[in-house]
């Protein structure tokens, strides 16, 4: 290449550069001009806004509450907003359920737990246009503090729980803002399945609910279900304490599997391993041998069953009872069934609102029971099933479909959803079950059913160390592993019996729901470990 060419090329480059440079400069100039224009516009708007906004201090986003000051302000709950408070100016903290702007007005529905109330913000001498716009743009589920005057309404507001009053907003501040896109809409979560299909509206399926449990639990139905569950637990405790029972807490990390080695979780325990308790069985019995006579305990139960059914969880809350009796284990059955009946009565009398709320989304028949509880014997059940056309052996265990059929037959004849089945065959029960004295093929054991599904399995326990050893050997259980258990019966043990129920299953069956995950706050099953 000659120098001239190189020079020429460089010149061309320079020229090209300057052309490009020119173009670039032009573009930048345009951009700057646009930006300046925009800024000017904004500034103009801002000025306008600032000029007109006389309500600037009556709304806004509060700084995060880090306990900066201790305000002595009384916040009224939404459920207490009744016509009695008419014309009072009060503060309310609630969530935004919906917000809708209509011209110069903004309608908000504020929600706290199951209660909703309508709030109105209108452009006027107290509220500016900007304030109304701000209110209309608030995201759903944000928590806000509202100062408002309670006003009576002539026409009932059908869509809210507080139907006789409405709030006229004076001040509105955001305490905690929610993100704009919610993973699920609350009104979809409360919609009954059938309605969703008919009208083409969305319903939320179970996995989505469980993945976003925090939002799903805010729905009126979930609030009602778990309040009722809390009632079950409370009634259980109250009834048993009144009967003279003592509440105990049993260990959940144990050295040997109690119900058989198959379905137990192993945890590493320093240099060895231990197991998570499948039931408080062994410890309840030890308490009886320790002269506590009547004990109950409420605590988690861990079952490593790989069952993906509608009624199995790997972790659930067990309500267990154990009682020493005088001469016949029916004394214990009577005590347990009376406790269950008291629980049902308490729920029927004190939780009707919750039951109705759940029924709106999940309709079902009300739960029926008899007092005293109906008790049938296993042989009778087999005869009833055979009469209905089922083929089964006399000593066969009841399969799940047979249990459901039996439940329907009992419901038809006696009109009860709750009954006890007594005297199960010995072969299908665990090794610590006491055999029937009159017939060695049967045992002193019983199951209780709600709506045709089993909720409790119990029996008179073998309280004699020798008989217990024989029964364990008969079931091919390693005696070394249960040595401590057998030892507890060697120093005088009273005859005793008991049983345990699952809190989630009882709530599910009482309300007529179909999946136990609906009654477990953060359910655990073989496929789910979070939240």
């Amino acid at each position: 290449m000659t120098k001239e060419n190189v020079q020429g090329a460089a010149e061309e480059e320079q020229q090209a550069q300057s052309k490009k440079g020119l173009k670039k400069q032009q573009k930048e100039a345009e951009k700057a001009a646009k930006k300046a224009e925009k800024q000017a516009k904004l500034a103009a708007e801002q000025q306008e806004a600032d000029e007109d906004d006389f309500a600037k201090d009556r709304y806004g986003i509060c700084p995060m509450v880090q306990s900066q000051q201790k305000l002595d302000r009384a916040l009224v709950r939404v459920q207490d907003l009744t016509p009695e408070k008419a014309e009072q100016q009060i503060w309310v903290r609630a969530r935004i359920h919906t917000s809708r702007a209509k011209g110069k007005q903004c309608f908000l529905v504020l929600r706290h737990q199951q209660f909703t109330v309508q709030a109105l913000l209108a452009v006027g001498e107290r509220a500016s246009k900007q304030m109304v716009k701000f209110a209309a743009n608030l995201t759903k589920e944000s928590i806000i503090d509202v100062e408002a005057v309670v006003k009576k309404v002539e026409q009932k507001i059908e869509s809210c729980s507080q139907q006789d009053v409405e709030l006229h907003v004076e001040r509105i501040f955001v305490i905690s803002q929610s993100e704009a896109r919610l993973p699920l809409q609350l009104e979809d979560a409360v919609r009954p399945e059938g309605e969703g299909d008919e009208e083409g509206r969305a319903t939320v399926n179970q996995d989505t609910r469980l993945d976003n449990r925090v939002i799903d639990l805010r729905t009126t139905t979930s609030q009602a279900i778990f309040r009722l569950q809390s009632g079950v637990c409370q009634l259980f405790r109250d009834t048993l304490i009144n009967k003279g029972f003592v509440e105990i807490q049993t260990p959940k990390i144990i050295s040997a599997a109690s119900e058989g080695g198959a379905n137990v979780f192993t945890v590493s325990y320093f240099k060895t391993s231990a197991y998570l308790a499948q039931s408080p069985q062994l410890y309840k019995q030890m308490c009886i041998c320790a002269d506590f006579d009547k004990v109950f305990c409420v605590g988690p139960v861990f079952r490593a069953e790989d069952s993906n059914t509608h009624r199995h969880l790997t972790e659930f809350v067990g309500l267990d009872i154990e009682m020493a009796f005088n001469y016949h284990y029916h004394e214990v059955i009577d005590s347990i069934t009376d406790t269950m009946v008291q629980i049902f009565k308490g729920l029927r009398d004190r939780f009707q609102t919750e039951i109705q709320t759940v029924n709106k989304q999940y309709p079902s028949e009300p739960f029926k029971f008899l007092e005293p509880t109906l008790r049938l014997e296993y042989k009778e059940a087999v005869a009833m099933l055979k009469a209905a056309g089922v083929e089964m052996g006399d000593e066969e265990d009841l399969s799940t479909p047979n249990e459901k059929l039996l439940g329907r037959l009992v419901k038809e004849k006696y009109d009860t959803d709750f009954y006890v089945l007594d005297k199960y065959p010995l072969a299908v029960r665990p090794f610590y079950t006491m055999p029937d004295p009159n017939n060695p093929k049967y045992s002193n054991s019983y199951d209780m059913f709600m709506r045709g599904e089993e909720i409790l399995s119990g029996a008179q326990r073998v309280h004699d160390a020798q008989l217990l050893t024989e029964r364990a050997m008969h079931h091919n259980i390693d005696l070394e592993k249960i040595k401590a258990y057998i030892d507890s019966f060697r120093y005088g043990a009273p005859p005793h019996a008991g049983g345990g129920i699952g809190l989630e299953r009882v709530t599910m069956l009482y309300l007529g729901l179909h999946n136990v995950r609906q009654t477990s706050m953060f359910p655990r099953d073989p496929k789910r470990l979070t939240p």
Partner: protein
Amino acid sequence: MPMYKVKPVSPGDIKIDLPACMYKSPNIHAQGMNCGDHALQNGGVDPALERLEGRQDEVLRRLYELKAAVDGITKTVTSPDADLDVSTGSRLPAESVFRGTADLDSLLGKDLGALRDVVINASPGRPPLSLLVLHALLCQRYQVLSSVHVHSSVSAVPPSLLSCLGPRHTDSYARQRFQLGFTLIWKDVSELQMKFNTQSMCPIEGEANVARFLFRLLGAGPQDPVAATQMDCWIDTAVFQLAEGGSKERAAVLRSLNAALGRSPWLLGQEFSLADIVCACCVLRAGQASSAPVNVQRWLKSCQNLGHFDCVYPLLQ
């Protein structure tokens, strides 16, 4: 010329495995067995044959008896001397209430191992007094497991209704030892209802109908159709006119009761029957006992003396 021979398809002696459900009968074509000659030679008769002949004789005898009975009835009906006056009751003796032969298996169906449980749903506002009397009668005849339950549709029931079937049987923990179950459930129902075998029977409604069912379990009602019809007539009168009628109807029924009881100690004649139970209970429940005519009061006193009505009086307050 040799004939066409077919080779045998199957070998001559095949071992056949006979199934266990078949039974073997002796081969009558085998040599050396001649049953008839054998027996006749000995002069005796084959015992099976004897039994068969005996059964045949028995059947023939019963047929003759039946024929004689039918002949007797035809004579009484067709002969010009027999003047059957229906209003004074039939001539054939009526079976006594307590001496009937009833078999629960034949009345209620074979026992498959389940306790035969009669379930009665009654409203606590209208206790079925006649059924309580029948329960007392049933307890005398059979081993009855009685229980009273309160259904969840009713919130509370007075203690007298909870103990109306008497004290709990000491053996009530062993359901298998009883022949019959009597379960009374106090429930919010508009009409009294009885369920027995839901697979093969529809529920029976109405106190009178349930009373008729339970009475049949006692194994005796009047056997002849005339008396049975009269009994049904009295029961219907009691249930429709005495219990549900106006004061005029009630007065009329009391008058006819009085008239009938003037002629005989019990409504159907000499024997106590379901008609007496139901009518007495209706009179007692209507509160007319003290203002009833003379014969009716005497009859109520006789009912009380029988002892079966003791369970009813505590419920009348």
